Every structure is written in structure tokens, then in C-alpha cells.
């Protein structure tokens, strides 16, 4: 079984509104799976269905090959985007309570909490109330509560919001470590740079439909346009530009080199390779910069959503 989670033809409606329209996803084991999409696309509906907070109108969800059932609650950890804890409850008691709700024994929960509290260096907070902690501190507690019961499937919805860059990095490291230890991670975010850093696969949901999914690298390959960013040191920039325009599709580029080189974006026509362009350039000057433009997750997101609308 390669996939930990399989979502098959899930439909969810609220009255007249369709939140998910026949969505299917396969989430491979031990991967970080980016669940992306504009606000209101249906991501939260899908996450709630996976968490069994709501049931789909139709469709099937398999966890490790079994139809999703209440017993799977213990195998899922969920960090919602809108998060919170009981404000007037003490940190330790609260973490114990939430862990027990996930099916852990009190003894086991205590042991695991001790490990995490020491790891994050927050053991001194045990008897503090949540309302006495700062937002970032509360987020750390929340993260621990999410991962404490060692779930097979972890769902993080905007896990870095509320963290400063140092703590965000700490959390990112922990998430990757958890994957390394065998967990599968669904990662929902609007911060595309962290998608680049973390995700192996992504799915893009827009207007209740899945419009794109697959390995991030594969998607990039299909989205790339054979465009190269070039920097050429030449004495006759005007003429070179004219010649380039006759052979390739040329557009202005906005990056800067340290000297006054000619900088352009050049798109290769079908059949041409990078070497064709390179040899064309070397004949006309000194190549200082030559990079293929790979679309970022951000570009892919914007392009895909715009195309869909």
C-alpha cells in the first residue's frame, strides 16, 4: 500500500452550496502533501471530512486501506488554522486532557508530554494557564498537543502563523523530522515559499474542484516554458537583441547583474535546446548568466487558478 490516505470522489454540500465537487486525492506514505487553494476553495471542508468532524454526502475515504471510522481518530493529528485552547485551564492539565481524548492513557500521555516539553524547553509552563502565555508560546503547546499521540497522519493548517521566523524554522524542522520518522503530513498553507521547502506532492483545489495534483517536480516540469534568463556582456546590445528577436521569443527581464550586461528572458521555440541558445550567445559576447526559469509554486498557483476562472 503506497498511499496512506485515499480520497475517492468526495462530494459535500451545505444546502445549495457545493463545498467539494467529486474530489479525489492520493496521499503517499511518508510524504509532505501540500493542500493548496484560494480562500473558500473547499480545503477546510475536506480537512474536516478527513478528521471525521463532518461526513461527506458521497464518496469514500480510505486510511491505510480501511474505510475511515471512529477508531482512526487516534491515528490522526490535526492543527486547525483557527486554533485555540481553554484559556483558563493549565497547560499541563489541558495537554493531558486533549491527549486522553485522542485515546492515550494518562500515564503514556504524561511520559510523552515530558519528552516534548523538555525538547521545546517549556517544562516550566506546566502549571501556567494558557491566558498567561504569549501567542507564540500557546502555539508551541498547540503543536505538541497535535503530534503527541504519534499519529500516522498529521494535518497542519497554516502551521507557521503566529510564529516568529526562529520558531517557524523550529516547527518546520520538527515537521520534516516527523515525516522522517514515518508520519504522513498534509500541509495546507498560503505561504508558497514554505510549499517549495517542504512539500513532495501538492494538490490544488479551486471552487470546490481539484484542478491540479501530483509531485511538485512533475508539476513544475509541465508548467515550465523553456524560458531562460540570460546575461550577456556585449558591445553591441541593440544588434544582439534584434538578432535574438528574430530567432527566439524575447521579453525584458528585471534582474540585475553587477556590470552593464544585456539581460533578457528568452523562450525557446519547439525543437530548440538550451545548447542552441548558448552557442548563439557565445558567438556574440561573454555569457555571464544563464538560468532556466523554473516556475515557482507561487507561479503555478496563480496560473492554475487564473486559468480555472
Amino acid at each position: 500500500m503506497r498511499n496512506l490516505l485515499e480520497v475517492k470522489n468526495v462530494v459535500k454540500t451545505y444546502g445549495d452550496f457545493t463545498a467539494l465537487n467529486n474530489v479525489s486525492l492520493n496521499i503517499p506514505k511518508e510524504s509532505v502533501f501540500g493542500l493548496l487553494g484560494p480562500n473558500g476553495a473547499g480545503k477546510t471542508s475536506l480537512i474536516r471530512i478527513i478528521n471525521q468532524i463532518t461526513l461527506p454526502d458521497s464518496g469514500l475515504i480510505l486510511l491505510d486501506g480501511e474505510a475511515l471510522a471512529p477508531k482512526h481518530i487516534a491515528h490522526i493529528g490535526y492543527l486547525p488554522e483557527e486554533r485555540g485552547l481553554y484559556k483558563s485551564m493549565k497547560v499541563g492539565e489541558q495537554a493531558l486532557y486533549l491527549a486522553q481524548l485522542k485515546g492515550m492513557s494518562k500515564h503514556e500521555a504524561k511520559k510523552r508530554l515530558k519528552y516534548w516539553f523538555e525538547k521545546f524547553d517549556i517544562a516550566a509552563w506546566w502549571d501556567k494557564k494558557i491566558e498567561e502565555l504569549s501567542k507564540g508560546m500557546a502555539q508551541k503547546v498547540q503543536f505538541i498537543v497535535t503530534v503527541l499521540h504519534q499519529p500516522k497522519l498529521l494535518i497542519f493548517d497554516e502551521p507557521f502563523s503566529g510564529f516568529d521566523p526562529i520558531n517557524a524554522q523550529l516547527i518546520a524542522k520538527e515537521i520534516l523530522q516527523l515525516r522522517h520518522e514515518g508520519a504522513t503530513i498534509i500541509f495546507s498553507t498560503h505561504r508558497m515559499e514554505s510549499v517549495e521547502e517542504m512539500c513532495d506532492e501538492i494538490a490544488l483545489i479551486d471552487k470546490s474542484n481539484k484542478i491540479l495534483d501530483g509531485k511538485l517536480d512533475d508539476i513544475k516540469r509541465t508548467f515550465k516554458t523553456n524560458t531562460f534568463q540570460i546575461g550577456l556582456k556585449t558591445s553591441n546590445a541593440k544588434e544582439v537583441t534584434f538578432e535574438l528577436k528574430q530567432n527566439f521569443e524575447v521579453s525584458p527581464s528585471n534582474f540585475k547583474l553587477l556590470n552593464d550586461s544585456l539581460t533578457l528572458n528568452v523562450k525557446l521555440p519547439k525543437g530548440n535546446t538550451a545548447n542552441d541558445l548558448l552557442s548563439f550567445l557565445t558567438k556574440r559576447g561573454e555569457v555571464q548568466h544563464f538560468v532556466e526559469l523554473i516556475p515557482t509554486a507561487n507561479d503555478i498557483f496563480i496560473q492554475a487558478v487564473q486559468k480555472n476562472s
Partner: protein
Amino acid sequence: MMNKLKLIIHREFIAKVRNKSFIVMTFLSPLIMVGMGALIYFLMQKNDEKVKKIVFVDHSGLFSTEDFKDTKTIHYTDYTALGIEATKKKVEAGSYYGALFIPKQDSLELLAQSIEFYSKDSPGMSLMNSLENKISSKIRNEKLNNFGIDLAKIKASKIKTSIKMFDFSGEESSKLINELKIGFGFIAGYLLMMFVMIYGTSVMRSVIEEKTSRIIEIIVSSVKPFQLMMGKILGNAAAGLLQFFIWGVLIFAILTLASTIFGVDILEMQSAGISSEQMETIKDRAVGDKSMLIIQEILQLPILKMFVLFIFYFLGGFMLYSSLFAAIGAAVDNETDTQQFMLPIMLPLILGVYVGFATVINDPHGSIAVLFSHIPFTSPIVMLMRVPFGVSWYEIAISMASLLITFVCMVWLAAKIYRVGILMYGKKPTYKDLYRWLKYKS
């Protein structure tokens, strides 16, 4: 499943009883109640100690100072010599409370209708009763004399009758016990309404807190919303029972302590509602005897039955109402939005108390009282008011059963609204929204 419910009940119970307001309410209110009682008693005594000075002008020549003997609260002075007009002026200017004018009339009948009382403040009922009693008895004696009837014989023939009342189970009752039954029933009914309101809103607040703190989404990813709602309701019910139990123990302790310190005084407090002026009119009943009687009568009430039924109706009524409170809490984002939904919930509670006060007092087994003690939304209150008067077991059974059935239906409906509401933010819902939520699939 059960394990998680137990966890939730435990958390809700602990969260409630650790709350400062719970601790303060639990330990302070019995003290406040006893303190208030003592204060009222004290004030009443103070009030009575103020002596009212009354002057009388008697032109009929019938009355003497013998007839207007000073009492603890009223002092009489004979101003007959001064005449009506001068007395009026004097009373108006001076420190006297009022003036009684008895004119000269040809017949006693006319005299009885022409006596006047002047005062700056309008006099209390009991003062007027006391004056009228004095005058009536004097005139009656005078008439008896005129008819040639020997007053001494009349006095000797006086006999006091008291009919002992029984019901067919052999329980003895009396007028006093009737009053006690009304008192006990009403206290129980009123207490129940207060408990349901206080603990119901507490459930609602707890739901709103979970929504606003956004922990709800984490909780419902671990447990079913229905479990959470039931856990909340049961946890709060347990806290309510604990509070009720502590109150019982505390009141018993305070009363025991007070009665050992003040002796019989504490028992007198129970008759503090009767002012000393009224006491005079019934003074042939000794105070000590009355206290003893009250204790005896209380012991004759079906205390255990009332206690058990109070617990049952508290739990039943509370769970019925608190499921609605929970649904409201889930539907809104903050407490100010609850107003529009609160009225339909409060109404039957308040109706129960009013119907109880209005009907049970006249006829505890009248058709209205019986009807409302079977309607589930008012039955906990009205039935508790009726119980001290003796309600047949099958009526109680029907009332209990309909309460339980309604409770199950209401919890089912409320859970549907709750389930959807807890994850809805932003818009203030309307009744139409709530109706739509009822139809959502989970």
C-alpha cells in the same frame, strides 16, 4: 466512547467547581440567606419597637382607659377633656401618631358606623384591625348587657374548636401544615427555576467559550459533538447537585449551630412573618408551642419524597433546558447575540413559576395545576409545588415519563443545531438558519 464522555464530564465538572464564582456562590449564599433572615427578623423587631402614641376623644361616655390599655407598640392617652377640634390641632402639630374620635350617638348601631380616626400617615392594616376589634368587642358587650345577658356566662361558655384534618392515608394535617406545604413547594419550585436558569446559562457560556477560543475544532476532531454536548450538560448537572448538597449541609449546620447558641430564638424566626400586632390578636397561642408545632408539622411532610423528586425534576428539567441553552450557545458567536433566542426558553420557566403561584395555592389538584404539572417544560416546577400536598404515584409517573421523552427529543434536536453551529462563525443566525441546520446531514 464512554471513556471519552467520562473525561469530558470530569473536565466540565472541574472547570465549573474550580471557578471562583462557583466557590463564592456555594459557600456564601447559605450564609447570605441565613444572614438575610436574621436581618429581616432584627429589622422587624426594631420596627415593632417604635411605639405609636394614639389619643382618643370619647364623647359617648362608653369607653374608659380600661378599654384602651397600652400595649408594647401602642400607647393610648385620653384627650376627651380637650374636645375634637383642639385635639386635632394638637395631634397635627405634635408627636402623636393619630387621634380616635368616638362621637355621641343615640344608638349603638349608629355609633359603630360613626367613629373616626385621624392620622398624618395612613395607618397600617394591623393597627386598624386592632382598633376595630377593641371597639367592636366593647360595643358588643354593651349590647349583650342591654339584652340582659350575663357577660360572665358568655365568657365561661367560650370554647375553642380545632378540627383535625386527615387524608385517607391517615396523615394528619392542619391549616398550619397547609401553609408549610405551600411554602416548601414554592421554595422547591422557585429554587429549581433558579438552578435551571443559572446552570443552563453556564452551559451556554461554556459552549460559547469553546467557540470563541476556537478549541472546538480540536475537540470535535477527537470526539463526537453529541458527546461533547452531553458531557457538558452532565458535568454541569453534577456541579449543580454538588452545590445543592453543600447548601443542604451548610444550612443544616448553620441552623443547628444557631439554635444551640440562641436556643429557641432561631425557631421564632420562622414565625417572623407575623408581626407582633397580629400576634396580639392570636396571642392565646403561646410562642413556644407554635415553634414546637412547626417542627412537628415539618416532620410530617413527605421530606424524603420531596427530596428525591427535587433531584429528579432538577436533573430532568435542567437537561431538557440546558440542551436548548447549548444549542443557542453553539449558534451564536458571543453572548450578546443570545438575547433573541433566550426569551422562548425563559418564558416557559417563568410561566411555570407564575402558574404555580396562581393555581397551586388555591387548589393544588385543580385542572390547571394538574395540566401544567404534566407539560414537560413547566412540570418540574409546578409538580414540585404540588408534591407536598400529595400527588398520586401515577400522576408523578406520567409527568416523569413525559419529561424524559421530551428530554430525549429535545437533546436530539439540540444536538443537530449544536453540531452545525459550533463550526459556524461570522453571521448572526436567524430562526430560519437554525431550521435549515436541523435538516443538514452530519
